[in-house]
């Protein structure tokens, strides 16, 4: 008995995106798996409409991603190729894990960080800046300095949005979008023609100088000359582990999550919502900045204005985080999925006889869009499982 369900759901804590999407965030693996499946089926229909075979297309993408390396039965020639492909997939997975976490942690704090892209860009800029300086510094020190600079740059960039939100109430969605573009144009300015950080050897090419070899991350799997897998994967996984501890086992995480679900109740518990928002955003920026550093120090070694303008890593991070239910573990697996998808559809890896890679890249975007679309409405998740009842109504009432 007691409170009749007349309290508008909007008034019972569903004031943040985190609270609104809590329907999707609950429960186990079934919802994200079904969501991904639905998106892939819809993507398959698109392929079918193009007059291609969806199954063989997905098979080719899968092979292109190198995930078949995990199968014990493939031939040794295939395995060599698969290893090369898998290295590329994992190289893409590294930043995806980190920018995914950068979206996920903000989400748990009730903030929608669309600024992963800009924070990542700031990270790459800082990493290039430090990486191209201090030639001859000891490797570990150089890498460490570059990584720290990138994390600081990303963290500060994100903290601007958090600070604006906390101090003026400025919506972080708008401010992070704006900061994305400011970062983009800043990067294009710095490395563009005539730019202060453009390389000096080729004045007609808008690209930075190469980073010093001392700043490069060691490759531990594959040929360093052929873009083997760098140790950044371990750093990204360590980042995910730390994020897990932060969210599930720490006082800071408890505070961030409390603010995310209900800022008023958090305030009542002595938690300042504003401070948590700045903190959550700054942590996210650190992670996104780290992603940028690992890409620069791990395999790109330089930054072209074109890379800055076409990079989609930060936006992929949104899909990664949402599909991973904004948990640390889920984000890692979702990052692997999207890493495989992006690499498996790349020009280099997808067999053009089965499906044209230029089309497949867009197929990835479509699948990405469908996943985010399906996640946006928790009703869909609850219907998917036929799982109605109390939580489905947004959490209020008896």
């Amino acid at each position, binding site marked *: *008995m*007691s*409170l*009749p*369900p*007349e*309290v508008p759901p909007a*008034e*019972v*804590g569903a004031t943040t995106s985190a*609270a609104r999407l*809590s329907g999707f965030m*609950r429960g186990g693996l079934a919802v994200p798996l079904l969501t991904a499946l639905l998106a892939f089926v819809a993507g398959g229909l698109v392929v079918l409409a193009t007059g291609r075979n969806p199954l063989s297309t997905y098979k080719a993408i899968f092979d292109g991603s190198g995930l078949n390396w995990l199968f014990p039965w493939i031939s040794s020639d295939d395995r060599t190729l698969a290893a090369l492909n898998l290295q590329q997939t994992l190289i893409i997975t590294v930043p995806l894990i980190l920018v995914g976490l950068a979206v996920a942690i903000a989400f748990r704090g009730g903030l929608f960080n669309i600024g992963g892209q800009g924070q990542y860009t700031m990270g790459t800029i800082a990493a290039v800046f430090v990486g191209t300086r201090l030639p001859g510094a000891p490797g570990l020190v150089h890498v460490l300095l570059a990584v720290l600079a990138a994390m600081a740059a990303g963290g500060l960039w994100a903290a601007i949005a958090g600070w604006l939100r906390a101090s003026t109430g400025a919506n972080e969605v708008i401010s992070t979008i704006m900061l994305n573009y400011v970062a983009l144009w800043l990067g294009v300015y710095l490395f563009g023609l005539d730019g202060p950080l453009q390389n000096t050897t080729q004045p007609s090419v808008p690209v930075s100088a190469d980073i010093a070899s001392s700043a490069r991350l060691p490759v531990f799997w594959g040929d360093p000359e052929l873009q083997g897998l760098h140790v950044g994967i371990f750093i990204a996984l360590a980042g995910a582990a730390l994020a897990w*501890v932060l969210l*599930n*086992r*720490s*006082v*800071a*995480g*408890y505070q961030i*999550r*409390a603010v995310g*679900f*209900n800022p*008023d*109740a*958090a*305030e*009542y*518990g*002595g938690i300042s919502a504003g401070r948590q928002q700045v903190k959550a955003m700054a942590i996210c920026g650190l992670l996104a900045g780290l992603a940028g550093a690992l890409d620069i120090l791990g395999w790109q070694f330089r930054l072209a204005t074109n890379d800055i303008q076409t990079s989609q890593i930060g936006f992929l991070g949104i899909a990664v985080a949402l599909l991973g239910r904004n948990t640390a573990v889920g984000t890692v697996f979702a990052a692997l999925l999207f890493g495989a998808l992006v690499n498996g559809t790349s020009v280099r890896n997808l067999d053009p006889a089965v499906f044209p890679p230029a089309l497949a890249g867009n197929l990835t975007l479509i699948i990405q869009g469908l996943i985010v679309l399906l996640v946006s409405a928790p009703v869909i998740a609850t219907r998917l499982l036929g799982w109605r009842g*109390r*939580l489905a109504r947004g*959490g*209020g*009432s*008896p």
Partner: protein
Amino acid sequence: MADVPALELRGVTKRFGSLVANDGVDLDLRAGEVHALLGENGAGKSTLMNVLYGLHQPDEGEVLVRGEPVRIDSPRRAIELGIGMVHQHFMLIPVMTVAENIVLADEPTRGALLDRAAARERVRELSDRYGLAVDPDAVVEDVTVGQQQRVEILRALYRGAEVLVLDEPTAVLTAQETAELFAVLRELKRRGAAVVFISHKLGEVLEVADRITVLQRGRKVATLDAADATEPELARLMVGREVLFRLDKAAARPGEALLELDDVHASDDRGLPALDGLSLTVRAGEIVGIAGVDGNGQSELVECVTGLRAPTAGAIRVGGTDVAGRGVRECLAAGVGHIPEDRHRRGLVLPFDLAENLALREYRRPPLARHGLLSPKRLRALARPRLETYDVRGGDVDTPAASLSGGNQQKVVIARELEQDPRVLVAAQPTRGLDVGAIEFVHRRLLEQRAEDRAVLLVSLELEELRSVADRLLVISDGRIVAEFGPDASDEELGLAMTSGAGAAPRHGERSEPE
């Protein structure tokens, strides 16, 4: 046709999941009468009216308008049938003008354009006819609550309402405004309208109504003529037993002053003065009740004492330490416990599980936290005995708070606060929306605190609750304590003090929860 009711409900049943909000309710409404719908909070009055207004569909039963069975599937249909509603939370657009709000959805036009002059004129006309003075060009968010209510009434009349439903219309009004409202209702009646007046205030109902229908736990228990009814009889019908319950209350033995407020001033969220030199003292072993019309500074008082709001001037001493403006953590450390007035907004993080909710006050201290890390195992270990002690049902430590009933949610809040061993407990409307059993539980806990020599400050809108639990009653009006009474004060005495405080106009924008 004079004997055909203007509106009739037959056997209306409305369920929400397992909850039966209305259970076979009959009601007939005649033109030219004020019909009061009386019931406790949660008796199903608002649900019934939402059925009538097309916001809910009844699961069983039928609605007849002037003898014809009708299906009201939307507010639009209700309006077409001549039913108008004045909601408890006003359904107005704050940024629009009075005239725009009134003509909304039935606007006078000139060509394809809105005819503002005509709208203004029609509003003037209506307000003159019914004696409801409003300024058509004022922006709604700038006018008083009383005027906003007039706008609501005018809007219903503008749309041609012959049946007017007013949901708890006096809850937000001053005595003066209430008297004016009653005059308007009598005028409406004289002009042949049928008025439904929803309330749980016996005195008002007897004053203004012609007939009274009493609801109890979703069922209709009686319809009687106001002329024959008496307050005790209505009270008995409303609560289902002679009295709510008698608390065995030993005389208070007040000890040292634990909470002292000295000339406290504070502003509300909009920066307007809310507390205006408020002083009070609560001693160990006593319960002090704060009575007052909603929106006279109660919320700000509670927030100042619990550290959620910094007073602009004055001292707040807890056991001798000044905590004014020191924030939640310091207040907590000084020994202030707080049962907030809105458990959904403040008291609980609904998606958090019960263990996490129970830790909201101590999550950062050992044993729960060490070196910044939180132990879920210890969180649960702490929560389990508390759930048991406070008889929380319907969930375990891992259950999200959202899936508990309101009464059990409130028990979680109380468990958390009392286990902090507070010296001073601030309880703000701790029984709002609870059923009788849960209310009794809360009241007993409050008395236990008194017996353990804690100081309790109880803020409530329910005079009955204040009288049965508190040892002293302080009346708050316009941000000041204007009178003090013993627990045997009469409704009249209290009501007079609550409403006659100098210029006691409740400010607009105060929230009051739907029943």
